[in-house]
């Protein structure tokens, strides 16, 4: 779509027109005024992005626009969709509109489809809701739609069940349903948040293409500024149920006027990208793993004092290396982890070697399911490697006695992803923080313990009074700081953080990362930092390890590896990250698409996105635990969401 086209679109009659829209939820705790006085419009062919932090009311606006608000919501004002006012319309009228005039793509591809109905049938159902087609014709049309959204071999895939598809493919199916009847307005509520960056880029490309083809107006709900820069024509910023600023995307992202918008943008971690002129270095060099020594410009890295040699992934056990591993706080050597046995086995880690030296921060990145969390859990001793060795503070975890292992572990602090799930809601904040003390300093008096808790609360910059509160009385960022306090209460030498901020808003994320950085400067602990957010890792870690399908793809100093990646994989990862600058992002997208077009013949699906069930296949939740249930149905893999650049 060219700029000229866009401006003509801007004058056409809006297809969605919200006028003083208000939404109130009546809940047990009282009424929540989730949306107040929102007015906005979307014109044909135009994409309006609705941004704002979590809970600001974005989804509520989107749902109100299609008339799908939950039963406890009351809408006021007007929401005109073509000629119909959604607020006043009855369910039957709305059903006639939905799927034809307006359709919607939801965030979570894992649950948006009926698990028991073949995808072809689900699409056909939407078609037949509005068009007088025979079942066979509708099925044919469904296959055609699947082809349009880029599902390979659509004829066969139409008879697949949702669980047989990867997350990206599922989202494509949902999109196919949404565009089945060429709607005039497409509402997309965080359509890519649950997906890997590479997949996200493809989905956004697809949506953009489809909207351009049919002149569909798009209302895009997101909190990812990169996505906004990538996609939107205009932006509306929401804060606590109200729209604080609206305008063209360049204006809002580059020259924000409202304070809140400014703050929001400032908090977004930015991925530093190599300038177009800078040639990528030959990959052979990267593999040798020696280049980092030459990157003298990396002040922080040099400061950390670590030898620039990264442990190479080959791992011939020379005496020099064992000396090195002796001094590293944690050292994984040729670790392989397989889950399950026989043909169903999953190699979560395959010959992985990595180490973290004192005071150093190592970032672990990679696609969802690449084995990041598993590596972290191996380092923590929560998962026993199938082969290979793990040394923690110089001792092999397998060899030492139970008692010694426990005391070794007192030197480890842990912060995990979800601030809600990582604190036991039944304990007070003080008890949560004191728990490691109770485990390892049994003889400590309660007074000493309290003092220690107060002390550590100061350090994470929480008021001492919080010790008496329960976690649910805190905000997400505060809870994550409590987690951090708990991790630090024993003065650990190693902090393992598995996606510690992926559940948080950018602004909150920034604050938490800030605190970690400061404390690390103070206390000098080493840190193994797992994230799939390259921008965060780039800002936070000195060294980065890139994982793919259980193997280490490459590793090296952050600035080097992430600026001049040595492998295509890393490059693709980086290219797929949208940056919150519309101008830069437009250029990057063009480059990426050009490169991708070269790399593979047209019509085939993007790599990493075909194939059968992706690793993030939700273990279809089967109620009732039949005797056959394995004890460990890991649901944690869906946590791949997060804030990207």
């Amino acid at each position: 779509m060219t700029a000229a086209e866009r401006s003509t679109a801007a004058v056409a009659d809006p297809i969605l027109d919200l006028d003083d829209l208000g939404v109130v939820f009546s809940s047990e705790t009282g009424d929540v005024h989730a949306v107040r006085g929102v007015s906005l419009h979307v014109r044909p062919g135009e994409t309006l992005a609705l941004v704002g932090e979590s809970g600001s009311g974005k989804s509520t606006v989107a749902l109100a626009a299609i008339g799908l608000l939950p039963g406890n919501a009351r809408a006021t004002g007007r929401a005109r969709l073509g000629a119909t006012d959604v607020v006043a319309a009855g369910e039957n009228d709305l059903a006639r509109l939905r799927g034809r005039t307006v359709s919607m793509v939801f965030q979570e591809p894992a649950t948006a489809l009926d698990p028991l109905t073949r995808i072809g049938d689900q699409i056909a159902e939407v078609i037949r809701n509005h068009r007088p087609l025979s079942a066979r014709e509708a099925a044919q049309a469904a296959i055609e739609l699947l082809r349009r959204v880029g599902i390979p071999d659509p004829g066969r895939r139409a008879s697949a069940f949702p669980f047989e598809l990867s997350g990206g493919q599922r989202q494509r199916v949902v999109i196919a349903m949404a565009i089945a009847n060429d709607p005039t307005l497409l509402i997309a509520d965080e359509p890519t948040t649950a997906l890997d960056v590479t997949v996200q880029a493809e989905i956004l490309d697809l949506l953009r293409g489809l909207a351009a083809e049919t002149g569909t107006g798009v209302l895009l709900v997101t909190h990812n500024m990169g996505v906004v820069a990538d996609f939107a024509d205009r932006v509306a910023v929401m804060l606590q149920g109200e729209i604080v600023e609206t305008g063209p995307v360049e204006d809002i992202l580059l020259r924000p006027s409202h304070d809140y918008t400014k703050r929001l943008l400032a908090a977004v971690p930015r991925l530093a990208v190599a300038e177009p002129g800078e040639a990528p270095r030959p990959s052979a060099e990267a593999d040798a793993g020696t280049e980092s020594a030459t990157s003298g410009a990396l002040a922080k890295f040099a400061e950390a004092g670590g030898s620039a040699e990264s442990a190479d992934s080959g791992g011939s056990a020379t005496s020099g290396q064992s000396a090195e591993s002796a001094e590293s706080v944690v050292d994984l050597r040729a670790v392989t982890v397989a889950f399950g046995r026989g043909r169903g086995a999953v190699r979560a880690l395959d010959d992985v070697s990595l180490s973290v030296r004192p005071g150093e921060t190592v970032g672990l990145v990679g696609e969802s399911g690449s084995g990041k969390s598993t590596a972290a859990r191996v380092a923590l001793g929560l998962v026993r490697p199938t082969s290979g060795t793990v040394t923690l503070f110089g001792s092999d975890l397998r060899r030492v006695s139970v008692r010694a292992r426990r005391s070794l572990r007192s030197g480890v602090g842990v912060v995990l992803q979800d601030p809600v799930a990582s604190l036991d809601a039944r304990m007070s904040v003080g008890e949560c923080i004191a728990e490691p003390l109770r485990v390892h300093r049994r003889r400590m008096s309660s007074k000493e313990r309290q003092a220690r808790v107060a002390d550590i609360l100061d350090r994470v910059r929480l008021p001492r009074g919080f010790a008496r509160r329960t976690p649910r009385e805190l905000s997400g960022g505060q809870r994550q700081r409590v987690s951090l306090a708990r991790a630090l209460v024993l003065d650990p030498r190693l902090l393992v953080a598995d996606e510690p901020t992926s559940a948080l808003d950018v602004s909150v994320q920034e604050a938490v990362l800030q605190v970690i950085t400061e404390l690390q400067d103070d206390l000098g602990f080493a840190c193994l930092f797992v994230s799939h957010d390259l921008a965060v890792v780039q800002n936070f870690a000195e060294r980065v390890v890139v994982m793919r399908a259980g193997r280490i793809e490459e590793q090296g100093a952050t600035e080097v590896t992430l600026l001049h990646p040595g492998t295509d994989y890393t490059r693709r990862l980086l290219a797929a990250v949208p940056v919150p600058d519309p101008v830069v992002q437009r250029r990057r997208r063009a480059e990426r698409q050009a490169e991708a077009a070269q790399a593979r013949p047209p019509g085939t699906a993007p790599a990493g996105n075909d194939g059968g069930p992706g690793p993030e296949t939700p273990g279809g939740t089967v109620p009732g635990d039949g005797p056959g249930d394995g004890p460990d149905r890991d649901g944690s893999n869906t946590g791949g969401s997060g804030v990207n650049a």
Partner: protein
Amino acid sequence: MNTYLYLARRVLQALAVILIVTVATFCLLHALPGGPARGILGPQATPEQIAQFNHAQHLDQPLPVQYGAYLGRLLHGDLGSSYTLNEPVSQLIVQRLPKTLVLTVLSALVGLLLAVPLGMWQAVRRNKPVDYVITTLSFVAYSTPVYFLGLILVLVFSHILPWFPAQAPQGDSLAQVFADPAGLVLPVVAGAASVVAVFSRYMRAATLENLSEDYVRTARAGGSRRGAILRRHVFRNSLTPVVAMLGYYVPVLFGGALVVEQLFNYPGMGLLFWSAAQSSDYPVLLGCVLVIAVATVVGTLLADIVQRIIDPRVKEGRA
């Protein structure tokens, strides 16, 4: 996981369960004080006759030896011979089990046919008067002991209003049983009451849960009407957990049959067990428990298989 492997594993587990059942029952039975001889031979039997009986039934051997012998015979399909009924246990079960199955299967079917739509209706009308009424009724149905319910049914529908006979069909063969459908009405109703109560609650919960699932919202966003969504999507999705429960309901159905059979003078397996328990007829007791355990295990297995059929995810879910 591969279907055959899965089946093999399930069968192994089933065997383990059955083994545990036999050990437990065997121990329980032999913990009965006094032994069965005097009870079976009656007050007038002489000590010599009692010794003779104990010897003939190997009751004078140590317990582990007896159990070993029992298992050995079991492997050859021999369930032993009733002390009192003058027949091999396997033959008794072959005669009685089909009758009980007619009763339990009919009760379950009738119950489910009522429970599923009722549960869905309740979910759709959540917290409306219908919901409360059905909930209350299902609580009452669940809370009424079957023997009391049976009595009320007989009193009202056989005695006061002579609509149905107070006896279940008396024939020996299934053909004779089915020849008297009116006779089956009251026993099946008595047996079905708790099925309706329990499964309408399950169905209600499952439907409610599914109604709040994302895919319902997706379907609505695609313009599907409520009725269609209920029929096409929610129904099947809600049914899967309910099916999973059915296997575990098998023993409950047999427990119900125990009472229903004796209320309605219907000599099935429940009754066989009842009289065997009164007379300490170990082989029959063991045989019945074994059959029920097998039925339960097979029931859960069937439920699993049905689930695998209606829910393709299950195959993959159990890695």
